[in-house]
């Protein structure tokens, strides 16, 4: 259970950023994340559900050429604000960690 909160926060950030780029359905989203980060794929869905309940995503169903209709997620205005806030926090955090790693520079 190393870095529970860290991983969880990062996952939330990734989901918000990806859906912010274009509307995505769950499977697409899971794939684009698990390509880069090792996760238990099923946990993305509860996360999507929670972010939707919190008003950061809206959802809609869209038919596809093959297979069943897909549930798409779209970032809402409050979702964008939340994402921007998380991205800022992340950049700030990474900047500080880097300045420690590189050393020398004013810590």
């Amino acid at each position, binding site marked *: 259970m190393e870095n529970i*909160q860290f991983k969880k926060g990062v996952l939330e950030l990734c989901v918000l950023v990806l859906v912010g780029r274009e509307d995505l359905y769950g499977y697409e989203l899971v794939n684009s994340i698990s390509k880069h980060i090792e996760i238990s794929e*099923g946990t993305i869905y509860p996360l999507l559900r929670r972010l939707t309940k919190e008003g950061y995503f809206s959802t809609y169903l869209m038919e596809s050429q093959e297979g069943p209709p897909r549930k798409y997620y779209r970032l809402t205005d409050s979702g964008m604000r939340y994402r921007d806030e998380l991205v800022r926090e992340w950049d700030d955090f990474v900047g500080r960690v880097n300045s420690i790693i590189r050393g020398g520079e004013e810590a």
Partner: protein
Amino acid sequence: MTKETFLKKLEAELQGLDADERADILAEYREHFELALEAGRDESGVALALGNPKTLAKEIRASVLVEQAQQELSMKKLFQAIFTAASLGLFNLLIVAGPFVGLLGLWAGMIVVALAFLVSPLIELYMNGFPTTGADWLQLLLSLVLAIVGYFLGRGMIWVTKWMYRWLVRYLAYNIKLVKGKSHNEA
């Protein structure tokens, strides 16, 4: 594990949730399976990558119950939410149940004090009978003052109870967010 086994297990673990909500959640995992199979992945591999249905169901149930407890003031919902949040792990049991038991004790103590103050004139009358001497009257007067204090304490406690409920629910919601990431490693 096959697709149907996974979905059945998940469905069984989601018992007790609103039927629409459950159908919605299951549909999403079903869609995931179908798209993965279309892409040429095999059922058991997909199920494995999704993780343990029991763990997933616990996460989902916990957040649903907290949402419900947030929407309506109900002791039953609150206890359900606490229980489910606690079942996410022993670590969680400690950080959820610890403060809860402490607060509950304090709360019960205050209620008892308020009640005791409130009934003190009755106890006074019962113990000493109708006041005859000046000292008796003074005691009765004091117990009436206590009763008034008890009355306001009681009203305050009703207010405190509502606030405690809200804070507890908020604490649970925060707590579930905190523990959620754990299931990666349990899968």
